[in-house]
């Protein structure tokens, strides 16, 4: 692999609290090439904060520090807000959990996708329209003409997520951050959506960060996995090795899942060890 697309070193995010600052993310470092990187953890582990910090989408009171946050030739730490606006959506796209909330309820599918094209200067209105229709076809929507005229409330969850993928990928971003993209969907739809996301990301040669609480899903879908707990990275490992993970936290998460292939009397409830969290020494 050549130069990584994204290089994050010692990313720390802190929020003001009664006792000075509380760290939501502590010294998180990772690099991403062209592959699919999964970030797993429980709620509050900092996985979404990590995704949002890369896009600088955290609230203004958050204090973001890092030794390095390089995205290609762009330094995300020092880029101006104006520059960030063109990066967000244009070069780094984010797919959110629930299309019912993430899409504009007052605009049709087509006009939202065209808007995404226009903001990121994909061409004239007519070209944007063609691109949008082609994109709807690319996300395997059977009848793009019909769906293009619908409003978000007329879409099913799976269809809404396809529209969102189409909208986010139409400006050809180099990096896609998918934050729990299938958690609001049924299991039988989940596979299709991940397939489509996979296919599109591959076709455009983009990198993917896949944030999820679902360990087996991430294991099957990604190349590499970061396991997070308490705002820190517990371990990074190849997805195929997830089942043989070494870190006690990853093992505990694995074991707490009711198995599908055998009956167990009592489920393992993870016990947390404060020693996993490093204090001030890195």
């Amino acid at each position, binding site marked *: 692999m050549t130069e990584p697309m994204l290089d994050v070193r010692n990313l720390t995010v802190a929020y003001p609290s009664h006792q000075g600052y509380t760290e939501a993310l502590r010294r998180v470092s990772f690099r991403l090439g062209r592959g699919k990187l999964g970030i797993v953890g*429980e*709620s509050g582990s900092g996985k979404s904060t990590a995704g949002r910090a890369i896009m600088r989408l955290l609230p203004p009171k958050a204090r973001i520090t890092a030794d390095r946050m390089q995205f290609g030739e762009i330094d995300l730490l020092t880029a101006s807000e104006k520059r960030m606006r063109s990066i967000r959506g244009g070069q780094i796209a984010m797919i959110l959990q629930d299309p019912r909330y993430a899409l504009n309820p007052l605009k049709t599918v087509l006009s939202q996708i065209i808007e995404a094209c226009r903001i990121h200067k994909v061409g004239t209105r007519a070209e944007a329209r063609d691109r949008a229709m082609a994109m709807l076809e690319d996300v*395997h929507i*059977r009848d793009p003409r019909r769906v293009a005229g619908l409003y978000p409330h007329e879409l099913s*969850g799976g269809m809404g997520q396809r529209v969102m993928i189409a909208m986010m990928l139409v400006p050809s971003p180099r990096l896609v951050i998918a934050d729990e993209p299938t958690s609001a969907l*049924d*299991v*039988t*739809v*989940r*596979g*299709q959506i*991940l*397939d*489509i996301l996979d296919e599109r990301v591959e076709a455009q040669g983009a990198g993917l960060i896949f944030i999820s*609480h679902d*360990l*087996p*899903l991430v*294991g*099957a*879908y990604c190349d590499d996995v970061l396991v997070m707990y308490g705002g820190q990275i517990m371990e990074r490992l190849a997805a*195929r*090795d*997830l*089942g*043989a993970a070494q870190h006690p936290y990853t093992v*505990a*998460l*694995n074991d*707490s*899942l*009711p*198995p*599908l*292939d*055998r*009956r*167990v009397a*009592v*489920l*393992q*409830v*993870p016990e947390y060890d404060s020693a996993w969290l490093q204090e001030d020494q890195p």
Partner: protein
Amino acid sequence: MSAPELEIEGLSVSFGQGTQRIQAVQEASFVVERGASYGIIGESGSGKSTILRAVAGLNEDYSGSVRIDGQEAPRPRDKRFYKRVQMVFQDPYGSLHPRRMIRATLLEPLRIFGFDNADRRIRQVLEDVGLATHFAYRYPHQLSGGQRQRVAIARALLLEPEILLLDEPTSALDVSVQAGVLNLLDALRRDRCLTYVLVSHDLRVVAHMCSRVAVMTQGRIVEELSADALREQRSHDDYTRQLIAASRGRTPLDAVNGEGAARSDPRKDAVHAK
């Protein structure tokens, strides 16, 4: 052998009228033995929660029969019914009164049903669900999701019911927290000989918790099978097989590790079959 504890026969529920009419549940029938745990699994919109709400009497507009110990449940449900049947809801963030201390939330059913020794009962039930007694003096926003769901279970248990209706009791929780709540529910059922009807979209949860499972889609129960059959994928119904495949499709942790070939096949089919 006495009559089965809970018997549902030909239960149908519809919403709306005329062309807008939606048949949410069609002729659902099942039987739950005393002390058993019965699961209903299906995707969103399959009608699984609608069945539970009809049984609980939250929606009285159903046809068919709901019998407890062979006796038809009255409409509207009376106090005697709720003494025996209680429900635990999905979202512990929405099911507890935000402006009430836990103690007040727990006190209410005891008052309505005229129980004595309220404070002793509250202490006991909190202990039973694994919470320290000082939780009685907290507000819901001071509790984590898992703690709240334990309070919701405690509230249901206070009346010493025989049947618990569980509507996705752990789907708002992390897997690590889910493990604790499922263990608790399992232990309570065994210790108190409770009967459960558990609704979930999660095959793992249902297979772990229940002995018999109904599979629902589009308002119908398409198959009823044992948890063992579910685990061993002995199903005769296409939809059930599809559901099992989707649930297992991306679980290399359970299957052989590193089998990349098996990884994408089922989902690839799903897209291109369209």
